[in-house]
């Protein structure tokens, strides 16, 4: 065991700073990411300033900054991670994330009827965030050796998707679980899966969802959330039900809609003023930004943020190493799916579910996982140690 640790986890084995071609690091991606993080800091600061004197448990700029300072070095470490080590240990990382998800059932902290957090000395860890990275890595590893050209090649990748998905959904955290699906589907596509297979997979997923609903596997509150969404999609219905289950959606829509073209100004929004918007520093952070920046600013934030997955995909497309390409592409999909779902939830396009906006929302786990994922993507794209597998010269 000792020698295994020495062989696998010694800094020399883990990191390869010399292998990083620093001039080829996608600095533009890093700059975009830094801009997003800075935006998050500004808004977390504004939210903190709006907290009343002596308030406990609200938005905290200092807390966010502290978590950022803790997580930022991890980006650097992930960037310097040795690709070969990563390639060899993807399954271990994946199973570690699965173990953490399983541990939730024994030592997890329950809040709001969900058991999603592992208590750590300074913050509570949300293993589902790490599971997303684990999933990207294991899928990249599996798919780098499979082209999904026959059904037999589908079995293992689908199994590794279903495992974390089921565990996360059982917490219950259906919102996070559902973010895994676009990541997985996207990665199947990147791996070369035919369109008709993907469509078939989607149909199967929808059918399973329908069966789950009919057989009672979908929890009542989840169904009610969908019902609330359908019954309060239009503004008048939402306003009518603002004191009931649609409270959160109403508050988010009110804040967002209040922004108008140009917004209310930093810290001047109702969301910060009345502080009735639940989770305004995490799951509803886009509503706050939308209110204070207005439509123009919101579109700007969307463009800035969407640059990140676009640039990551461009970076991935340039990779000749299939594993690296899939990892970078998977990270791009991770950011993209979070962005789309988070904004769609806050604008009422999809049912209300708690999902942070990576790099902006408060929440240590999200920040940690996002920076780790970003570091991995940047590192793999800029590293010397590439393998020349048979895919390198393949034309799709």
């Amino acid at each position, binding site marked *: 065991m000792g020698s295994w640790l020495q062989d696998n986890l010694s800094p020399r084995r883990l990191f390869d700073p010399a292998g990083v071609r620093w001039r080829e690091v996608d600095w533009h991606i890093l700059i975009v990411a830094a801009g997003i993080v800075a935006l998050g800091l500004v808004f977390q600061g504004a939210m903190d300033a709006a907290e009343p004197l002596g308030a406990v448990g609200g938005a905290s700029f200092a807390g966010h900054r502290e978590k950022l300072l803790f997580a930022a070095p991890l980006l650097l470490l992930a960037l310097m991670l040795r690709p070969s080590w990563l390639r060899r240990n993807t399954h271990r990382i994946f199973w570690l994330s699965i173990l953490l998800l399983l541990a939730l059932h024994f030592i997890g902290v329950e809040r709001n009827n969900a058991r999603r957090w592992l208590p750590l000395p300074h913050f509570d860890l949300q293993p589902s965030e790490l599971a997303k990275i684990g999933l990207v890595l294991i899928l990249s590893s599996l798919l780098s050796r499979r082209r999904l050209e026959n059904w037999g090649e589908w079995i293992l990748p689908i199994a590794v998707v279903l495992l974390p998905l089921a565990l996360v959904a059982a917490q219950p955290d259906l919102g996070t679980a559902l973010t895994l699906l676009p990541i997985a589907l996207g990665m199947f*596509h990147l791996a070369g899966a035919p369109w008709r297979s993907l469509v078939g997979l989607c149909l199967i997923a929808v059918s399973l969802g329908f069966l789950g609903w009919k057989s009672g596997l979908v929890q*009542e509150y989840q169904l009610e959330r969908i019902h609330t969404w359908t019954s309060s999609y239009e503004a008048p219905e939402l306003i009518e039900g603002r004191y009931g289950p649609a*409270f959160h959606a109403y508050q988010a829509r009110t804040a967002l*809609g209040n922004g108008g073209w140009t917004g209310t100004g930093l810290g001047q929004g109702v969301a910060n*003023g009345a502080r009735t918007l639940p989770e305004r520093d995490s799951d509803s952070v886009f509503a706050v930004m939308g209110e204070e920046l207005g439509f123009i600013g919101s579109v700007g934030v969307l463009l800035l943020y969407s640059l990140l*997955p676009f640039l990551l*995909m461009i970076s991935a497309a340039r990779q000749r190493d299939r594993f690296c390409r899939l990892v970078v592409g998977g990270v791009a999909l991770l950011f993209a799916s979070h962005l789309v779902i988070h904004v769609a939830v806050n604008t009422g396009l999809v049912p209300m579910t708690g999902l942070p906006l990576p790099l902006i929302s408060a929440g240590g786990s999200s920040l940690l996982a996002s920076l780790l994922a970003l570091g991995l993507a940047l590192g793999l794209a800029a590293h010397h140690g590439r393998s020349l597998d048979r895919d390198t010269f393949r034309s799709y």
Partner: protein
Amino acid sequence: MSNWRRFGAPMVVLALAMVALVLRLYEVQVTEHKLWAREALGLVRSSRVLPARRGRILDRSGKVVVEDREDYVLEFVWREFRREHPLGAIAQARSQLLGRPVSLAEADANLMPWALELVALTPDDLDGFAAGGGLPLKSVRIEELGTNSDDRERLARQNWRRTRARDARFYLQSLLGLTRREAYLLRKKERERWGARDFLTRSALVRPALGALGPDEARAEFLEEWVREIAAARERLIDLSVVLSVESSDRMECYDELLVRLEVIRREVEDAVADDLFSSATGFSAMRLSSDNLERLDLRWLGRALVWDQARLVQWSSDRGARSGGSDGFSSPGFRLLAGRVYSRLQVAREQNPGRGLADRVLDELLRPFARVSANRGAGGVLDWRAVDSLLPLDELQSALEAPPELSEDTQPLFLFQTQVVRELRLPDDFQVRTRPGSGRVLWGEQEALLARALGLDDHADSTGRTGALIGLASRRREEWSPGELEPIEVLLGRLDRAIQERVYGTLGSRDTTWALAPKRVAEALELRDHLLKDQSLRPRRLLKRPPYSLVEAVTRFTEQHAGFRVSMRYERHWREFDSGQVRALGTDVDLEPQPLFQRLIGSLRSPSMVRVLRERDDLARARELQAALDRKQGDFDELAQLYGSNLHATQEIGGSGIEGYFDFELRGSHGFQESIGLAERAQDRSANWSQSPVDGEDLILTLDVNLQRVAQDVLERPEFLADSSADPDWWQDPVGALVLARVDGQVLAAASVPSRSQSEIGFVGQDRRSDDQRLLYRVQRTLRMPTFQPPGSTIKPLIALWAMEYGWLDDEGTRHLLDADESLVTCLREGRDQASGYGKVRCSSTLGHSYTLHRQAAGSGRIRDMALRDALPHSCNAFFSWLGQHLSVQDHRDLARRFGLGTPTGVRVFEGLKEESPLPRVGLVEDRRPGRFLEPLDLASATFRQYAANGLVCIQATPLQMARAYAGIATGQLPTMAFVSQARGVSMLRPPTSLGFDPQNLALVRGLMEQVVLRGSARGKGLSRETLGFRVACKTGSADICKGPVPDGKGGWREGMRKHAWVAGWFPVQDPQFVFVLLVHDTSATSSHGAVQLASQFLQRPEVAALIQR
């Protein structure tokens, strides 16, 4: 570049998603912006009504009787106290740590030790506590969380711990009294692992002034100052308590008293939050479940939300579910309120939906409390009883429980209205429940029978009668309800509710353990906890009206030193004119606090009735809509100003009774309105973005005269005792009666009524009274009201005489047809008969007959038959007027009463001629017109009753004000309209008189005979002569039996006899009638000549009355 093919598709999908999101953002932020901006504004826009000053009420000479004055009110805000005052913060922090309510008294008893314990905690202590660990306080050890409970319970307790730790930390920081900057630094340092230093040390280190010192020195310095501040805060609170106390002068007793009052407010706040939380989680009010059923629910979550222990939770639930019902159900305050609401809605439903049948309306409102709020609406949004199919709280409970029990096998609907058969009934508009007279047996029609079964009444004839009473009530328009009127509603609601409670209990009582509510609904309710706590605890509660100026100054100038207390300004009604304060009770003069003059007449203010609030609901909804509107034009502001100016608010007082009530529209003015935009927490510097100044109410000028009123009241309150063996000493010891003085044009100068104070105030409770309970009715204004049967007696005789002369029954000498009269009358007149004088069944008040002496004199001159009106009226001959009344027709009697205004309004409520009429029905200044038995044709068909009527007995009644008007009519030939108010809004309220149409000769004859009453008749030698008063008076006395009772036997003892009303009515000066007066003595054994006349004399002898003549 081949890889682009694979990446192109996700990028296109992402781009499309971005486009969709941008479009949606455009829809929400641009297209729907106005809508959401309005909603957002609603979250931060605040407004307040600027009250108008109510108009003054002045007497006829311009003396202010009542006026609005700016008054300060000391209020208490629990949220500010618990967050900013050391005592509140300690009690709250300690409650959070112990997980049970810690009272203010308990916290005060241990103030410094507990404060020191709290600040000696470290952040790690609280973190450990939050994580479920123990907390070793000096005074008590808080154990760590056990693990012997089930998963959910353990998690719930863990979450509770976390919440408590968070809140405890907040109050602890409040207790330290840090500035905003210091609090920020403290939070910052907390994250920097500042060793194991306690909060006190940390606070010392973040204080800039102590920054240069070492930790220990800084701590010591900080501690010294902090302890001093806490002690000073306590001292200030004690000082405050001394000012507030009404019962004690001992400082610590006052302080204890204040702590109890503050604790009561705290409990009220927490109870209200618990009510709201329960409603949010279950969908219905906790008061809708009986105690038995509430006990079946697992409410530990509620206790945790409010940091209550089991005892406090039980107290709340037993209070909410308390019902003390007999067989008919419920009498809890909550149910009474519900019944009141139903009753009020019945009034409004009648106005708002007149097309709906009466029975339908009654059933709509009866079932409304049991129907879901949003459901069961018929056309036009009206709740339709035929559509009610889900009942509160049963159906809501089914969905609110985590594991809803199976409904019992009984598939019968709770009420038959849920069946199709009953729903399809067409109820006639004249639906009513009829009972067979005498037997009480119900006479069912088919429709009624079905409905009665639907209401569960088929086996209860008594309740059926109540249903009929309810429907009868609903058919009348009434502004207020009395407890008696609410009874049928309460009974019926009780029956419906009991059926539900039984079904709920039958369903929930099926197992031993309690039923848990659905976690999701509980979680959703708990999301509102902070908001509800803030909302309820921010509402100010009144502590003291008119606090001393020193207190006002202290609280307003040094706000931070009086956390939780605030002073607000509001208008209060002040009386300027008071009576003497001396009354006579049981023959003894009693000195009391002077009480407001005209108190019962002018009336008082009160909160608006629910009927009024409901009536104005639409207007207020419109006002709220305008208030929330984003873009408002000037017209909208004008409409808003008009709506807020004219509409009532639940907290605003309005005229409730008397003149204040009747002229409320003129007096109350138009409120102003101020609107501010700003965030709640930054409200300190908010400024108005729009305001409308209030318009004060108009002054009201009375016809009443302060001096004369005081004199009249004084004469009644403290009559000078008579040395007359026939007088009734009982009455003089404890007077009950009324006195009116008015100008002959109808302006009332004085309207006094006794008793005006309660027996308990006078201090003679439980004495053996010889008469009825009228002496207890001190709130009644007897010049306007007839609280009991009130016949005018012989004071009606001048009216009869005038009528008879006018229509040919009497000639100029008043003798016509007399010789043809009944022999018994002649016998009575001629001979007089001991113990039997009278005519028919009407006895003479004199045992020898009024005319005995006269006839004896006449017999000597051989002119027996000359007995005529000229003698009968001054001597008040009952036999003569009986004979006259017998020969008047039924219609004559009724026309006579109408002509003189008996049984008709006097005019004090007449209201016309103002430019703008009140939008609401006028209330107050209640006047009796024709209560009970009043010249009923069936009665008058009997000759005996016509005899009674002509003597003012048995079948006719009148108020003193009506008699005053009638006598003013005789004095002037014109019937005036009586008035208490001469001017409102600058417009005269006086109305011209109407001619009575009598022959002036007849009028002159009767007037002359009425002076003879004083000169030689029943009022002779009783103090009404010109020699005594200085002016000539014409009047008529009258006495009317009202009941059997003890009367003086003339030997110092008592015998069984008749107790009566005694009247005197007349005018002065005789040669030029200017003023009319009426005196009523209630419940006396003496006739008017032995009491009322002398009392009138006492009044007329007063210099203030004589001054009237001189003027």
